[in-house]
């Protein structure tokens, strides 16, 4: 409980300092657009972000600009995904596993066809990739880093070698969906509900949730 009180005081003191940032993030999320927005440049540490907000930082204006290239690509991907999904029969709210699987594979096929020439770096752009790696390094290099790494690796029941990563392929059925700790989610750019971050081994995966397709990945994203 002492820890919690300290943290509360900390947030109480810092709320003024981060108020503007929080307001900016809230304003962005209130826009109601499905397309992720380019994150604003901020010097705030993720550790001090409001608990329900994802904040990308600390970022220089150059880093923010680099990440903006990724969020633009994310937006394009989500637009494509949404367009394809809308063309398909809607999954009932009380579906059988077979219906879920059929729907997923049908969407997977269409997404793969629509992105037939997709390659690594299409979404995690060359500009954004070093920023992502640096952000992850800050998380895994922090006081909880070792524990976070153990948590991710421990619950990955298949050896990393079991999956050869290929962009625009189905997420391997033999590889469990691993933990993505809140600290990581808080640090990386926010995604829409169609996408999520996962890890396979030490690689960061951008997973199309509905299609179960690897949209992009960064190898060796978790620092040793």
């Amino acid at each position: 409980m002492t820890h919690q009180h300290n943290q509360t005081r900390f947030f109480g003191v810092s709320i003024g300092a981060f108020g503007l940032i929080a307001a900016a993030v809230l304003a962005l999320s209130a826009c109601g657009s499905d397309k992720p927005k380019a994150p604003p440049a901020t010097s705030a540490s993720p550790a001090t972000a409001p608990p329900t907000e994802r904040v990308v930082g600390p970022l220089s204006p150059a880093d923010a600009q680099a990440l903006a290239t990724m969020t633009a690509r994310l937006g394009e991907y989500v637009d494509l995904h949404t367009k394809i999904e809308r063309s398909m029969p809607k999954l009932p709210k009380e579906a059988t596993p077979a219906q879920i699987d059929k729907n997923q594979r049908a969407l997977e096929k269409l997404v793969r066809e629509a992105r037939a020439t997709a390659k690594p770096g299409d979404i995690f752009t060359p500009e954004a990739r070093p920023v992502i790696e640096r952000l992850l390094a800050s998380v895994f290099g922090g006081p909880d880093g070792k524990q976070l790494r153990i948590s991710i690796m421990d619950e990955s029941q298949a050896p990393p070698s079991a999956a050869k990563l290929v962009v625009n392929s189905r997420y391997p059925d033999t590889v469990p969906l691993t933990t993505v700790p809140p600290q990581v989610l808080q640090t990386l750019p926010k995604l829409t509900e169609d996408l999520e971050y996962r890890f396979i081994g030490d690689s960061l995966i951008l997973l199309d949730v509905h299609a179960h397709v690897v949209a992009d990945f960064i190898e060796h994203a978790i620092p040793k």
Partner: protein
Amino acid sequence: MGVIMRMRNWSLIALLLLLIWTAGGRWDSGITGATVAQAFQAPAESPLTLPNQDGSFKFAVLGDFGTGAQRQYQLADQMAAVQKRFKYELVVTVGDNLYGSQRPQDFQSKFEIPYKALLDAGVKFYASLGNHDAREQRYYKQFNMDGKLYYTFKPKSNVRFFALDSTYPEPEQIKWLDKELAASNDDWKIVFFHHPLYSSGDRHGSDLRLREAVEPLFVKYNVSVVLSGHDHFYERIKPQMGIAYFVVGSGGQLRVGNIDRSSGLTAKGFDTDLAFMAAEIVGDQMYFDAISRLGKTVDSGVITRRNIKP
């Protein structure tokens, strides 16, 4: 001296065998529960401390279960055995409903087959999603999520449950929770989700950021009970701000000895075997039993609902 040494050796061997037996996991791997469960002999009826009154609301709690391994099936058998005597009508799941692959056959081997007896008895499962769950599970009819990642339902006139998606506690969800809790005038408000606000888990422990986001709402709106998983054991937390917290991440996965007893949070912990929780609401009281895979009642108690006037 030699006799003492031999005794020590035998003690060590016995202890080692006991640890291997309780851990059990290594023997499970690769074996489907359907075949092995037949060989498992659940013990005779274990004593329940629950009132088991006619007309009361009865439910169970299960978390971190969908492994498809032998032990999951054995606990499922135990749940079915208890349900025959204690007619709970629903099970809330606190996430990690399916581990590993989540193909149609996995829904069968990790959910539909082990809990067939319960499903056949008309017991409904209401799921929340954990960090290992595919979001598409929300469409699975047996999980009764109505296609939503977070939702609320009212199984009894004075009881309301709130299921959260604790992996992504986005502002929209917190806003939704605020609104739903404020609108509920039910005597019992019970919230369930995956990541625990309080846990003595050496592996994961308390999720402080989530706590900061939702605990003020729980306190403000008279939430009485919070159910979570994620850490693979059973733990009843000492009441926090008047709220009863349970970690029930012991439905299939198990992390033996993972409760950090020095956390100061534990009212009762059980981390040597799988367990689920059975509960009964009678008026202002909620009675609960935590029951192990072998049918032992490893914890029990009664909670009085919160009733703080604004």
